[in-house]
């Protein structure tokens, strides 16, 4: 198994180095004449006012939240899915109960409007 991941490691190294090489090549081949206006932040021709870190709506965080919970659900369900043919009826019931718990959570968020984009 480790030799399989050796391939992944080698591939990862190459997949990191090639784009880096392409960008460095672009730096070498391209001209380099920076000036203050060219390097300024683009904002449709207007000068930027204030911080970039304007405050964001909590909606983005809520999406991330629901995503985390379902992601965790997925890592539990994948091994169970692989072993599915060996499972007893009790195990199947337990799995479905687990899914139902999360569906309740999703329905709660739905009713509370957490999934709406106000």
């Amino acid at each position, binding site marked *: 198994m480790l030799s399989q991941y050796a391939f992944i490691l080698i*591939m990862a190294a190459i997949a*990191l180095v*090639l784009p880096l090489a*392409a960008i460095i*090549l672009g730096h070498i081949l*391209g001209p380099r004449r920076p000036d203050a206006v060219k390097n300024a*932040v683009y904002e449709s021709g207007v000068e930027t006012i204030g911080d970039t870190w304007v405050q964001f709506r909590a909606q983005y965080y809520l999406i991330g939240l629901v995503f985390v919970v379902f992601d965790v659900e997925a890592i539990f369900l994948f091994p169970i899915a692989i072993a599915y043919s060996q499972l007893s009826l009790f195990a199947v019931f337990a*799995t479905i109960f687990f*899914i139902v718990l999360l569906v309740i959570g999703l329905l709660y968020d739905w009713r509370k409007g957490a999934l709406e984009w106000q």
Partner: protein
Amino acid sequence: MQGSTWSDGIVGLLTGLGLPDMLALGIAYGIGAFILVNFGMVSALLLIWITRKAISRMQDRLGPNRLGPYGLFQTVADAAKLISKEIITPSQSDFLAYNAAPILSVFGVLILLAVVPFAPGLVGMDLNVGVLFVVALGSIGVMAALMAGWGSNNKYALLAGFRVVAQLLSYEIPMVLSILTVVLVTGTMSFGRITEFQSLTIGGFNLGIGWLGIMMPAAMLIFFISSLAEAELTPFDLLEAESELIAGFHIEYSGMKFAMFFLAQFVNAWVLSALMAVLFLGGWQGPGVGLPVIGPILGLGYFFIKSYAIYVLQQWVRGTFPRIRIDQMMYFAWKVLVPASVALIVVQAIVQKLPVPDPVIYAFIFLANIGVIWVVVTALQRYIKSATMGTKRSFEPAGLIGTMQKADTYAMY
């Protein structure tokens, strides 16, 4: 190591030259990985050409037609132009985040090619956790978008970066759940074994058309829609909506760094089509892949035909549909696709434990899929009707609201 793979030949050759085993394997892997990565980067040129041709035909244009046959070398010229462009680094950008983002964005896509099965025995590495590997490393793209958005020190870029992340996260869940339905049927996470599962042997001859997509059309549809969103293609391209966000999280990038984001986007779209081909359309399976010599070559052909056909289908959707709003994007992911895929999983979990022979189970799964599609389409029709009426109402004089005789006739327009 299971079965015979592409690396065996190279390893045999090198050990024949007297190299130690480890070194031979390392060199073989290095060659394979190098070819795979380069295939990914070069295929982007072809993919961009296909996109341009497909979209321009849909818009009654010719598309690129000057350089080379059918304008095939146009993208090569574009690449040469991009590489000789000045790379502008905005002042006050964050060095680490700004420069690492384009590289990571390409890396996150190219590494996925390692587990895509091209033909029997021709897969970078058939991992036991192949399916989860793809989903997990897909999240590098999310990080890259956040890094680019934040590192550019530009309000539009950061806003677009946030939108990208919201969209990618929302549609990753239906995608994972639709993959889970496949894993539930096949009982494996390795792409090689999922492909082998989809054979259909009759009388000792592998017809290779036991595709899961035939049995699970709803899961396939969910996967396809989520892959459109993950590839940031048009119905879901609100993260680069030119009219609102100028270009997306890569506004401040130029030259080769911009090209890297561009490349990642196109290759990502193709990798997602290839995954759909493998998961639902049998990958390299097709009539005659069981034959001794010609089989793998046929398999490679089937795989490329399927994956590029799905890629063209994606472009077709892209050229046809209008862009959806962010609230509709959220609505569709969480209130349509996620419940539908959860329902599929629960039904499948029950059906697969019924004490009946496999074909009956498959028939039940097919019926469940059709049922889910029917429910979703009905619900969506109702939503579209009410949304259309809402829009109509808001355009009518206030005094007329409520005096309408037949609301349904308005919805028809």
